């Protein structure tokens, strides 16, 4: 039973982690907490749904189109909503992302309606394996693990070895200095939004195939992912993945013992973490020297 809980918890945790990485990428680059993250992902998932159910394209083609769309959507939101903000404050920018969230939710409701839809990916929740006795693992969970591992590796390589990746990190750490080096800072922001939207869209497709698809469906997963991000310190990508895993485990074990309390445990975790270690469990701090 415990093995089962761990596998399930880690799978859902990896999903939170993917979603949370999106939050972290944007937070690190521009110090904005993007509350539209969930709805951006929801919108991209609806695009996938639309392509699949109206044009009947094969899933992988729909996936590629959706990924491209997700990147463009993220870039567009940065360009259209955040960049025009004159002398922005952190709070002002957060409110802008909240506005974008409402807008996307409204748009999705208008285009596809509020009823719950069935969204299917090739990695089904219902096909299960039992590699060890008593531990049942579904195709869905395997898919989550594999995709999360691939994306993490790609992100790691991107931030470590590519010129643009290093420039993005540099922009995160010191915007002015990056500018002096000849980095076009705005491009880095728009790239961060694109990347983050992409991560979100992939996570959202997993969430949608587990539950149902409707304009509100990313609300809760996003808040949980946000809790995972806070747990990981909002700053480091591996930290966030660990945060996601931890949250998934806590939630699953907690839910097993007291099922009726399961939905709130994530938020309890946010509050506790913020009280005890306001900068998160894995945050690093540099003191600026003069």
């Amino acid at each position, binding site marked *: 039973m415990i093995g089962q809980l761990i596998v399930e918890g880690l799978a859902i945790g990896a999903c939170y982690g993917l979603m949370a990485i999106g939050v972290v990428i944007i937070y690190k680059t521009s110090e904005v907490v993007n509350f539209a993250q969930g709805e951006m992902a929801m919108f991209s998932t609806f695009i996938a749904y639309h392509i699949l159910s109206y044009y009947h394209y094969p899933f992988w083609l729909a996936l590629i189109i959706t990924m491209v769309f997700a990147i463009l959507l993220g870039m567009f939101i940065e360009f259209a909503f955040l960049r025009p903000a004159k002398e922005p404050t952190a709070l002002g920018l957060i409110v802008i992302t909240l506005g974008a969230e409402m807008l996307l939710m409204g748009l999705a409701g208008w285009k596809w309606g509020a009823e719950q839809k069935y969204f299917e990916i090739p990695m089904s929740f219902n096909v299960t394996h039992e590699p060890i006795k008593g531990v049942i693992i579904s195709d869905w969970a395997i898919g989550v693990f594999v995709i999360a591992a691939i994306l993490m590796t790609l992100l790691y390589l991107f931030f470590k070895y590519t*010129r643009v990746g*290093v*420039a993005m*990190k*540099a922009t995160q*750490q*010191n915007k*002015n*200095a*990056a*500018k*002096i*080096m*000849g*980095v*076009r800072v705005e491009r880095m922001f728009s790239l961060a939004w694109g990347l983050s939207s992409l991560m979100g869209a992939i996570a959202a497709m997993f969430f949608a195939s587990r539950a149902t698809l409707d304009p509100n469906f990313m609300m809760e997963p996003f808040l949980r992912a946000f809790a995972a991000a806070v747990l990981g310190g909002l700053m480091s990508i591996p930290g966030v993945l660990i945060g996601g895993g931890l949250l998934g485990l806590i939630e699953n074990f907690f839910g097993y013992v007291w099922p009726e309390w399961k939905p709130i445990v994530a938020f309890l975790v946010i509050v506790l973490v913020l009280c005890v270690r306001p900068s998160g469990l894995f945050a*690093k701090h*540099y003191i*600026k*020297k*003069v």
Partner: protein
Amino acid sequence: MLKVKNIETWYDLIRALHGISFEVKEGDIVTLLGSNGAGKTTTLKSIMQILEDNDQPEKGFIEFLGERIDRKDTEEIVRMGISYVPEGREVFPELTVLENLQMGAYTRKDRREIKKDIEDVFRHFPILRERQKQEAGYMSGGEQQMLAIGRALMSRPKLLMLDEPSLGLSPLLTKQIFNIIRDINKGGVTILLVEQNVNMALKYADFAFLMESGRIVRADKPEVLLEDEDVKRFYLGIDTEETTADGYRKAQSSKRYRRKVRFR
């Protein structure tokens, strides 16, 4: 090489630069001197186009290698060959030394040459070679300053602008940094140096401009300025009266009235 003509820079409603003009000749070490708030850093930022307001400087023009750069993007200015070491180093704290140096070469694509230039930087600053895998945030102030200069050299600048390289460094380390700056200059890089450490800057410079509240008030060779009574008094703190205890007391009591002498 660099020609600044009558520029005025405003921070909202405050005029920080009241029409500054100066010229930097190729191959020289030119220094801009002045006390806090004189507008030295603002001048460099105006040249580099990194002020918050993109429409600055409001008046006047800046010419580099015969081309106007006062409305160009920072990226283009870097590509044209100006490099800037900001006040307080501003290294990337969570990048390694090597990555910091690679960031300095962001505008370049020639990988092999970049590698060679990194070696060059390591020759100037051997300590950086030892630290190349370390994150820059954990280094000492002096090492960070060396890294900041090394990083600025990575774009192969024709003109290197340094903003207070001696800030927060011990006298010995300051001397070391200045010697390296001189070496870099001998290697063919023109240098524009902003300093509060007037004594040190005058020793190394070929030409100096004195700034006071947004204006340039003196321009001369360092030999002349070092002998100048007013410069001695206000910038070097050398005062014959103050060398004895009696004279010091007298000087203290009369200090309030001394600023009557102004350069203008």
